[in-house]
């Protein structure tokens, strides 16, 4: 409940004059060299791969990811069954398909390169109800997506969602022109057509971008009379590029245990729900993974068996009238001489000619900032295979 008392309360609400009361802060904490093992992943009892990611914690100012390489990772059943995971040499350990027995409990067993052994608690195979639908509605100008699901067995109760969102976007300006540059100084030497027919380059006009969810999305039906899920999973800010043309959300749903729910909620509280007046105190983390070699060693992570259910939806811009996405691009006209180009256009990309001489020479042309002309700078021009 406390997350509702957001920063807005303290800061914005009463700040008449709204000097910004949130400032970037550097606590100047020195290197601590704490290298705790971090285990992320789940044992997929449904169709699909099981991927476990191992890494180490780093210092606060240390932005590199400390991958844990060379470990031996196995899924063990309490019936002594064993499924070794393959080291992908990128911190990920995977197996394309686990065939788990519903009557057996499984755990993760890790042996790191330094010889320490870690195990998770045993967990039984869990069933995840299917996603019924994903609906969207306009809220506060933006688009709010809700997941709808129900569990006739009333067994799931705790859910986690992850998503992958993809959207199509276009460059603000067509481009038929190209700078040629001096290979040594990189200075512009000329403006030329991209092809002999003076066509615009469509390969840099239409692009797609994909992002994975970066926040922990949790839900519970424990306070409801029936296991019916109707919860917000994703919000798109008003006028966002995401809904400029076509947007797709691929939602993955997992039924999780109460313990996993509490663990994820702690991480969420510690790292996502801060900055209000009524912040909860950061709390210590303890998952279900323990170090056998040194029982006092703290391990961050939670591994249990779950099933993945997915659903993909597409949303067209027309479903949100007056969305008014504005890429915020401007183009300027530059005379086609090297001085003008060097002065005004060196950091821009040329779009199309604006004035031509009677002989077809380019007297002046339009130019704009690179992402406004070349969409591949922000996304990929490879159309995803699921795209309509």
């Amino acid at each position, binding site marked *: *409940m*406390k997350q*509702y*008392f957001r*920063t*807005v*309360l*303290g*800061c*914005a*609400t009463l*700040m*008449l*004059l709204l*000097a910004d*009361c*949130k*400032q*970037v802060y550097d*606590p100047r*904490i020195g290197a*601590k060299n*704490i290298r*705790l093992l*971090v285990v*992320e992943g789940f044992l997929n009892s449904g169709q699909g791969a099981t991927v476990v990611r191992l*890494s*180490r*914690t*780093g*210092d*606060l100012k240390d932005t590199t990811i400390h991958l844990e390489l060379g470990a031996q990772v196995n899924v063990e059943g309490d019936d002594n069954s064993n499924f070794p995971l393959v080291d992908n040499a990128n911190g990920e350990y995977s197996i394309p398909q686990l065939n788990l027995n519903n009557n057996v409990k499984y755990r993760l067993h890790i042996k790191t390169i330094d010889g320490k052994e870690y195990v998770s608690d045993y967990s039984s195979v869990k069933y995840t109800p299917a996603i019924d639908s994903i609906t969207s509605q306009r809220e*506060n*100008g933006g688009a709010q997506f809700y997941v709808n699901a129900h569990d006739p067995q009333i067994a799931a109760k705790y859910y986690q969602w*992850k998503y992958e969102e993809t959207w199509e976007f276009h460059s603000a300006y067509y481009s038929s022109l190209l700078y040629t540059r001096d290979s040594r100084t990189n200075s512009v030497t000329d403006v030329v057509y991209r092809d002999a027919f003076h066509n615009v380059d469509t390969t840099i006009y239409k692009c797609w971008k994909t992002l*994975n*969810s*970066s926040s922990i999305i949790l839900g519970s039906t424990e*306070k*409801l*009379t029936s296991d*019916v899920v109707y919860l*917000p999973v994703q919000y798109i800010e008003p006028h966002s590029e995401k809904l400029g043309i076509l947007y797709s959300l691929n939602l993955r749903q997992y039924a999780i245990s109460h313990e996993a729910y509490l663990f*994820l909620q*702690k*991480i969420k509280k*510690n*790292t996502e729900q*801060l*900055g209000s*007046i*009524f*912040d*909860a105190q*950061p*709390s*210590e*983390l*303890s998952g279900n993974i323990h170090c056998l070699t040194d029982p006092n060693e703290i391990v*961050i992570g939670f591994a249990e068996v779950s099933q993945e259910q997915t659903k993909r939806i597409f949303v067209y811009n027309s479903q949100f009238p007056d969305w008014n996405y504005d890429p915020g691009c401007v183009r300027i006209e530059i005379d086609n001489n090297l001085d003008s180009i060097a002065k005004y256009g060196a950091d821009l990309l040329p779009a199309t000619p604006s004035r031509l001489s009677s002989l077809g020479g380019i007297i002046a042309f339009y130019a704009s900032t690179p992402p406004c002309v070349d969409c591949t700078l922000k996304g990929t021009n490879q159309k995803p295979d699921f795209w309509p």
Partner: protein
Amino acid sequence: MRYSNLLLGVLFLFFCSSSKGQERKDSLVSGDFKGLTIEQFILQLEAQTPFHFYYDQKQFDSLQITLSVKGQPLQKVLELAFVNTNFHYSIDQHDNVFLIKDKMIRTDLPAGFFGSSRNINDSAITNTNTADIGLTSDSSTISASLENKLYEIGTKSQIRTGNSTVAGYVRDDKTHEPLPGVSIYLEENPGIGTVTDQFGFFSLTLPRGLHTLNIQSRGKRDVRRHILVYANGKIDIYLHDQIISLREVIISSRKTSNVRSVQLGVEKLNISTIKTIPTIFGEADISRALLVLPGVKSVGEASTGFNVRGGATDQNLILFNGTTVYNPSHFFGFFSAFNPEVIKDVELYKSSIPAKYGGRLSSVLDITSKEGNKKNYAGSAGIGPVTSRLNVEGPIFKDSSSSFVLGARATYADWLLKLLPKQYERSKASFYDVVLHTTHEMNKKNSLYLTAYLSNDHFNLNNDTAYEYSNRNFCVQWKHTFNNKLNNLVSGGYDFYKYDINSEANKINAYDLQFNINQASVKSDFNYYINAKHTVQFGLNSIFYKLNPGSYRPLGSESLVKTDIIPSEQALESALYCGDRYNLTPDFSIDYALRYSFFQYLGPQTVSTYAPGLPKEESSRIGNKEYGRGSVIKTYSGPEYRFAFRYSLTSDFSIKAGFNSLRQYIHMLSNTTAIAPTDIWKLSDPNIKPQEGNQISFGMYKNFKSNTIETSVEVYYKRMEHYLDYKSGAILVLNHNIETDVINTKGKAYGVELLIKKTAGKLNGWLSYTYSRTLLKMDDPLAGEVINHGQYYPSNYDKPHDVSFVGNLKLSHRFSISTNIAYSTGRPITLPVGRYTYAGSQRVLYSDRNAYRIPDNFRVDFSMNIEGNHKVQQKTHNSWTIGAYNLTGRKNPYSVYFISENGLIKGYKLSIFGSIIPFVNFNIRF
């Protein structure tokens, strides 16, 4: 002039009755007199009573009498008939009544008129100036003659050696409001003296004979009363306002009370001081004023609640005219819930807590409302940027025996929210509070007081979740004076606090969450002034609690929310106490008391039992035990000791020491650093022990420059047991087994507080410095989780260095400036020491709890008070307050936090008031 006449009348009445003894039954008068001339009136009176009247008809030809009385004594009837006139009456021993204009007739001569010193041991009587008291005294000198008049206390007789007790009320001459804190002492022996209580009552035991009483109160003219004490008796004293303050030289014992009182760690602020302290938006605010006192802290600028000497926010007993207020704030803690227009003063007990109070570990904040004007209707109103206030007061009956004061305050803060970015445009916030206080003096021995308080907050922050919380309090107090030495205050009250959170946005999950506390209490407190050496206080009190710890219900027909109600909790907390203030010598006094409290947790209830020797967790729960209605489930009890002594080395230098122990049976559970509107309260039960605390303190007090500069040093050391902290990730709302989520902790706090205070003169104010530490420890492995490896760790409000300065400079009678400068160490905070990647984003790894601190706080506030003209006779008086909060615009940190944003960790510092906030307030009195 008319006031002095009335004063005379009242005093004269007193004089008559005291010299003539009790009222006679045959002198009672009833009737409905309308527009009677004096002749008609006297005829009626002579018909009903055995009295004979003598008067000069010519003097009374302009008088018309309109009066309705029933069974009133003649004296009272005459007093009512002549109220606000310059007619007087006198009654002699032979039932003759003399009526006269402008003058008074004395029907007997003052004792000592003939210099009969042989009757009286005290030879000073012969020096008494009685010459002014005469049959022909002129009206223009009546007021002055009162100072010189000799009042006889007790039935006139030969004076025996020994002590007698004189008691009575000190009141304002104009409004008849009682004046508390007025010092009364013998001019010839300042060691014999007392201070009036909250009802203006005093009781003074002194040797029989002739004395001069000095009566002094801040803002009132100093007066003297010559008294001749024959036996126990009563005297009421009326004080005039000191309207023009010339160069005053007042040496009052109120001003030396910091040196002379036995108590340690008591801070008293009256409303005029509170109003000079600049606050945010210029609203005079009790909680902000408290925070500038040494030893009082809060976690941040916008937090509800305060921490006294290392105690938690729930360890303060907040009393408003005797009622317990659970949430003393509005608008998330930005404003105090008490309307400054109806507050008279606040008193904070940090160390020596009187034995009549208990139930909280750290402090008692006693807020007293003012009493209404007993003679005229009056009021005040104020307009500020966020709230407006209205206050009216006046008599209820015409005989000035009763009065009321009604204060109301409401906000129009919605416009603030309108300034927010568009996405918050649907936010709403509002609050109001209403106070009603009435007093009724039934007779000389019985008074009745009634207080009703209501506060309400409602807000909605555009997230479709509506919050509401409310305090409702009601209290009746009856003061009965058995005799001069013994009086009793009986009170009964009902206190209520609730909150309600509901959300309708998501129809499937629409819910309504409610929480409330009900408490009914009765108290009986006795004061027994045995003699000049002993003052005994004793009494008992009892509180019945009924908590509804949470109900969660569906809202709307589509909601699938499952109704979840945590069963109500009941308990009875009772205490008996007895204490004595023993003045061994004028220089050495001790105050010792014992309070014995007991707490019974009552059925009906289902209590979980846990396996012994294991942490209380879901997994160790072995069963439930059912208890029926009214059955006593668990009893906790224990003694609480209160002890203090004072030794005066000189008249302006004393040392004091004290020891206190307290117990607390109701706990607030919160896992946020500041009080949030969703925090719940929990009673002690078989699984949750009461909190216990004790404090030892020592102080030195020295005054300079005729007591206008007070200095003090106080040192304390405090221990707390069974303070409730929570486990990591605890869920406190709607938790059926809350004992599995909380842990008992130990705490210790120590510190030294230095204070220099200038109480008089053009420049007044104080400078205080506090060094204090508050440390907690959680090392019980049975609690399931040890924090910071079982070592002591600083609490959230552990701010070792704290300096505050409050200054008020009176440039003229109409213009003054005030400033408030505050510095404190930043509060402890838990900071991340590492990062890792999880669930698609960078996450942080936290250090030990409260291992780091946020940057220090420094703030300067400034305000100007501009008063309208000071003519006494005008319809309205008005004043302006103009100022600025956080004058330097420093972005004082409230918290530092790290958050994942788009997959990356970012550190932020959050300030609540990160710029200068100017304000204007307009006040009007009528």
